[in-house]
């Protein structure tokens, strides 16, 4: 079981991820607001963050940078509906484990989370 933070400006997407990962026994904390998610991370343990790239006020990459400052060992999976080479390269350089294009398949999401938590994933891999 892991403490997982999910941030997506579309609430349904965040809820879906929570449902999928909760079924796998993880404790999932969902957010649609960046500041709320960062505030939570500042006061609680976070092992894995699943972040949408396109948020309301900040970008997912910026949030990842802030979270990494708080939890340097934290794993991260980036999600986007419109992948670009620039955001992918930036996310990987900040320590993201995965860079996935939405809509991601349920099974694929479960597998990536599993891999990220086990630390078996290859750092810097892109999955565009």
């Amino acid at each position, binding site marked *: 079981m892991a403490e997982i933070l999910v941030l997506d400006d579309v609430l349904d997407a965040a809820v879906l991820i929570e449902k999928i990962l909760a079924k796998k026994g993880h404790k999932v904390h969902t957010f649609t607001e960046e500041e709320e998610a960062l505030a939570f991370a500042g006061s609680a343990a976070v092992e894995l963050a699943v972040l949408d790239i396109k948020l309301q006020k900040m970008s997912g990459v910026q949030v990842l940078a802030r979270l990494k400052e708080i939890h340097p060992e934290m794993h991260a999976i980036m999600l986007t509906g419109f*992948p670009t080479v620039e955001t992918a390269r930036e996310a990987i350089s900040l320590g993201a484990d995965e860079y996935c294009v939405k809509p991601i398949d349920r099974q694929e999401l479960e597998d990536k989370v599993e891999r990220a938590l086990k630390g078996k994933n290859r750092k810097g891999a892109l999955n565009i």
Partner: protein
Amino acid sequence: MGQLKQGSGDTQDRRYLEVFRQVTRMISMVRDPQQVMENIVHNLPELMEIDACTIRLLDQATGTFVLGAAAGLSPEYLARPDVDARETMDMVASGQPVATIDVAESAHLPFREAALREGVQSVLTLPIAFQDRVIGIMRLLTRSKRAFTEQEISFSLVLAEQAGIAISNGGMLKQLERQVNFLGEVQVISRLLGSTLDLDVVLQTIVERLSAGMRAQGCTIRLLTPQTNRLELVASVGLSREYLQRGEVVDEKNTIRALQGEPVAISNVLEDDRVIYKNHMEREGIKSLLAVPIKAKDEVIGIIRILAREHRSFSRAEINFSMAVAEVGGAAIANARTYRKITLLFNHIEEQEVFLANILDCISHQLLVIDRNRRVAMANRAFLQIRGKKESEVLGMDYGRLHHSENCWDYGHLDQVLSTGQMATVVREVVEEDGPHWYERTATPMINEAGETEFVIEIIRDLTAQRRLEQESIERSKLEGIIEMAGAVAHEISSPLFAALGSAQLLEVDRHGQGLEEIGMIIRNLKAISKLTAKMAEMTGYSSRAYVGGRRIVSL
């Protein structure tokens, strides 16, 4: 030596008659006045039983009597500065004979000393008159003291008068001959000057011909520079560089007088205050000069100076000849100067024309100049190259005929400019082998002083490249818009799609039996939509395909 041989009255008369006959015969044999004088001074001593004889002629310019011929006397005596006492000379100049029986009693010391050194004791000075005007003096000298009788004096006066007639006639004849020669020379010079418009040739011809015609040592031409009003040496002959570079002559009195339009003759430059550079002239061997003005249209434009090695009393004929040559030369100089100006102007215009043509040829746009009759007056290189025509083919061609192959053109803009005097611009599309081309024609009027359009300048710009660039830019903007739109759609749909697909998949896991087939259909279609959004997100270009009602849509 005593008095003229005395005898009875008849004998004396016969003697005088014989002398007179011989003198008359002698002077009638020659026409040259110098020869007449030489004959008289060499023969008279024997005929008149005297020791020496001199003839001096009046120099009108200086009022002095210049030695013409002498016999029986030394050069030293003849070279003395004063001929005789002032009173003697004045009396003779007034037409009276003066007899000096004993020069030892002469009050004029220089003459007395010179005469005594020469051994002269008595002198009879006689005026040589012609037409009641004294033109010279004749002096009969003896080395023994003697008195001159009234008869001797009267007879000598007759001889002197006879000599005057001969000298004058000879002089006049000689003058006439010289005038005829001068006239011929003026004609030759006129012909030479008329045959050229080269200023340097004109100037050199004048100095060379005038110097030769005047039998002078050298000749110079100085012309006034209009800007500075200074005299500039422009031609010379027979003179050294050192002499020519002696300095300004504009302040010399002879120059000033000549510039006022009057000729100036100086027989002895070394003793004349109208000359400044006496030392230079002495070194150059110049003794006399004649300065004459060069006139063009009654205006003095310079001076000619004729320089002689000997003391010369320039005759009226010589002065007239020099003036005539200066006048002819003045006209020729003015013509040559005008021609030179015109040539320079023409060259300048030609250079400007070439310069302008070069500029026009450097313009990459086609350029035409059309006259009021719609004929081509000029075409630049770009126009000729694009049309594949030579300038000679195009010039003078009717504007309409020039463009007859471009039947899509109308020429209203040209007519508009010609009628209104206002600039007009048209842009037309012409279909050529490689596709459509766009040309902009700008017609600009050239207005003359009367305010009429004299020419029209037409600049033809090929806008094809610009138009194609604009179209490409539009296409690029369109593509960017579509790609952005596709990206936006992909992004906005992805999260709801993810939520819907994931939820359907969760349902599929949880549900067993009823509704499972429908959930499977939902998942399949949501995945199909996912593939489309993935394609939209990856779009970098597009192609379109036909849709209903003639519309086209983007192919994904």
